[in-house]
């Protein structure tokens, strides 16, 4: 713990540990193929991940438009029930796994981890490159299921057997479900290669002086999420393999004896609920795989743009770690009414509500970072504010669904749809959007257009809130989800047609605004205002590279040495309102920093 105390550093410069391994030279690509296609530079790989995820994400976005059209204006776009359920399924799976997981871990993880910990690259650049191409293959397999007879699977993104692999479900007796499961398995393989890289880089390749408790929260969020993913994805992997065996070889892991449309199937003795346990043992940590990077990144955005250290850094780190740990003992709250032993409800309701405590601490600390800050209302800050509101809303509705007795009337209704879209759809996406505005000047050397950005922000935030806030009320009424034709019955106190049409219009507009954002990215990367070095005056190392945008190897001949945490904003006595992490104490002799 030599370098941990600020006084130690000031008194004794040698407290910065010596190099443990001699600097190693990287493999520098020479040809076009090794520089841009099979590239080993984590920054390029991050952008490859990002572009691929966004490309398939647009398929998910258009799917949601079509679904909403069917719900609000049936018949306007001709589709049958099977196609509707295929849209539902592909939208869900694409958004959760292929967009959000890939973008946060593969995209942001690759781009930011080496830069932020002060490394030249990931520790295994070659494996990292392979990781992306395996992910790319998974996306191709997924997309190919649109072109096979019967089309993609329409089993719902949870893929519950027996329906997922039987003939009453679109793609259930064809190639649709096979390709979905194969694609997921390939995804997990690709992710494991990348994930091990991210974890080992954070643990082993930090620069001198970069103790764990000096890491930016972005790195803590992505690191913890990756650890979760490495433990959670194997459950999905085996569940997928077992279901494929049930489907192709007639085993009975998840298939009891059933009779379907008058025909007795050959399976016997399997348990559909076993699949649900495996799925949610992956599926619940998956929520935090998406949420924790968002938590980390938004902490940094708020701190930089409020010119104030993140409030309660140590508590924030512990909250991330505790949330990550707890996320493995709450999975069955997705199954309160799934027919498992009802006594499980007591345990899982308790663990689930305990998670509310560290999560609430994070929210308090974000808001307390704004308190007595010096808040610049830049686009990243605007998206962070929108994130806090959305996340608080979605988090609080989680207290309804997590509390087992309250979940009974609300489960399988639109309340659930509204809740999870708020908390793990819109909230993380708002962080992604904010962080693109934040790091675009680093990636391209130019700012995104501010005016277009403002329009994008207003439409996205007001639009998405208008989609999901009213939707909760459909759930209170008991409107069941996954209905191809909206059911207007006596059970409901008021017509739900009007509110559904409102939601659909909001969804169309909000979705369209994302194309404006993409337009902004394309145009600004060429013609945007030049940014220069460290335009936001941030403390963390990614802005301390030799060149902007950073080139292969990231830093100058010498790696930066770190003397302080990533949040020395507005330190009393300092000349500037920020002190970068690699500024030695002697350079800011008058600054009275308390925490390092």
């Amino acid at each position, binding site marked *: 713990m030599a370098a941990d105390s600020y006084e130690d550093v000031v008194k004794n410069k040698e407290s910065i540990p010596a190099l443990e391994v001699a600097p190693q030279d990287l493999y520098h690509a020479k040809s076009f193929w090794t520089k841009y296609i099979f590239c080993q530079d984590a920054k390029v790989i991050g952008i490859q991940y990002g572009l691929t995820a966004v490309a398939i994400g647009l398929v998910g976005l258009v799917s949601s438009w079509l679904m909403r059209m069917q719900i609000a204006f049936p018949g306007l776009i001709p589709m049958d*029930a099977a196609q509707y*359920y295929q849209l539902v399924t592909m939208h869900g799976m694409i958004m959760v796994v292929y967009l959000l997981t890939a973008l946060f871990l593969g995209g942001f993880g690759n781009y930011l981890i080496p830069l932020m910990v002060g490394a030249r690259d990931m520790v295994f650049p070659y494996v990292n490159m392979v990781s992306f191409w395996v992910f790319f293959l998974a996306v191709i397999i997924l997309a190919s299921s649109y072109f096979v007879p019967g089309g993609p699977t329409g089993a*719902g993104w949870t893929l*519950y057997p027996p*329906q997922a692999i039987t003939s*009453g479900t*679109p793609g259930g007796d064809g190639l649709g479900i096979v390709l979905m499961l194969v694609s997921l398995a390939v995804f997990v393989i690709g992710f494991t290669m990348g994930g091990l890289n991210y974890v080992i880089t954070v643990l082993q390749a930090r620069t001198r002086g970069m103790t764990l408790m000096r890491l930016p929260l972005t790195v803590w969020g992505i690191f913890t999420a990756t650890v979760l993913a490495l433990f959670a994805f194997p459950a999905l992997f085996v569940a997928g393999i077992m279901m494929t065996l049930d489907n192709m070889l007639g085993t009975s892991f998840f298939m*009891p*004896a059933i*009779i379907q449309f008058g025909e*007795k199937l050959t399976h016997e003795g399997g*348990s*559909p*609920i076993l699949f649900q346990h495996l799925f949610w043992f992956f599926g619940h940590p998956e929520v935090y795989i998406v949420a924790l990077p968002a938590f980390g990144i938004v902490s940094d955005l708020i701190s930089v743009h409020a010119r104030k*250290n993140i409030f*309660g850094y140590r508590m924030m780190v512990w909250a991330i770690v505790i949330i990550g740990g707890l996320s493995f003992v709450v999975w069955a709250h997705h199954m309160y009414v799934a*027919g498992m032993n009802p006594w499980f*409800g007591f345990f899982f309701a*308790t663990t689930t509500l*305990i998670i509310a*405590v560290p999560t*609430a601490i994070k*929210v308090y600390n974000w808001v*307390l970072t*704004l*308190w*007595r800050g*010096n*808040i610049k*209302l830049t686009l990243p800050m605007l998206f962070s*504010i929108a994130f806090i*509101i959305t996340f*608080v*809303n979605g988090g609080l*509705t989680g*207290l309804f669904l997590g*509390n*087992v*007795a309250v979940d*009974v*009337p609300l489960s*399988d*209704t639109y309340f659930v749809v509204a809740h999870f879209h708020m908390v793990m759809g819109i909230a993380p996406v708002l962080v992604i959007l904010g962080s693109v505005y934040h790091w675009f000047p680093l990636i391209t050397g130019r700012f995104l257009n501010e005016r277009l950005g403002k329009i994008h922000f207003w439409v996205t935030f*007001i639009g998405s809130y208008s989609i999901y*806030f009213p939707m909760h009320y459909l759930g*209170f*009424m*008991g409107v*069941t989800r*996954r209905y*191809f*034709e909206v*059911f207007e019955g*006596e*059970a409901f*106190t*008021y017509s739900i047609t009007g509110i559904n049409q409102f939601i659909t219009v909001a969804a169309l507009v909000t979705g369209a605004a994302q194309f404006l954002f993409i337009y902004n990215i394309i145009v600004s990367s060429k013609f945007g205002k030049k940014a220069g070095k460290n335009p936001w005056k941030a403390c963390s190392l990614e802005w301390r590279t030799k060149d902007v945008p950073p080139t292969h190897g990231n830093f100058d001949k010498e790696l930066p040495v770190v003397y302080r945490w990533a949040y020395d904003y*507005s330190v009393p006595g300092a000349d500037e*309102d920020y002190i970068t992490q690699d500024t030695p104490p002697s350079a800011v002799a008058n600054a009275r920093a*308390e925490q390092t």
Partner: protein
Amino acid sequence: MFVVLLVLIVILGSVVFHMVSPWWWSEIASNWVGMDDTIILTFWITGAVFVAIGLFMAYCIWKFRYDKDKKAEYEPENSKLEWTLTILTTIGVIALLAPGLIVWNNFVTVPKGAYEIEVVGQQWGWMYRLPGKDGVLGTTSIKNIDDDNPFGLNTDDPYSLDDVLVDADDLHILLDRPLKLNLRALDVLHDFYVPQFRAKMDMVPGTITYYWFTPIKTGEYEILCAEYCGTGHYAMLGYVYVDEQKEYDEWVDEQMTFEEVLASNGKSDLIKIALNKKNDL
């Protein structure tokens, strides 16, 4: 400073929407008032937190907006404040969890005097089975299911013969009597859900699940399938009629017992075997 306005509009707009919204649950028709009450309690506690955080944030954004001559306050940590907030949150969580668990305990504890009905789900419709005079549902197996025996009853089970079989989407139940629904699915997952009863539970092939409730209002209620079950999920509808004893008895009398179904299909040999078994008891 439009952003401050935006935050205020979103926060206060949510409150106003809640107050004027005509979209709310229909009047409860079962004993699960506790579920509604817990939702209301959760609503007030979480609503207060939502408004408090939102308003505080709006205040911060306005009050501490950027001024190049000012510097943000420097305070890395404040243990006292952090622990106070942690403890307050913990108290709030306990206040939500405790009543929730009490209601759940009631939900999973079937009262002794409850009578039983079996609900059978299959793609894409409902069937029902009443235990008949002996008050016991006969055992079943998927293997037994055929055109003559759509429920798959074991013919050698002495409790089977008097079971009342309802091969239709509509069900009648008794007012003010606790009812345990035994839930069975023949093919994939389903979920027997009546919004006014609030309760639901998935039906899982290969196992029998259950829930109980007491209907407290006569009337006609729609059944919705609440667990995705394939292409026809949205069309898996039916009706429950909550009856007084007299109407209920009339309805039961119109239904056929398993013995009558077998007889009408000319399977008197099977009946004989079953009756012998019953006499052995």
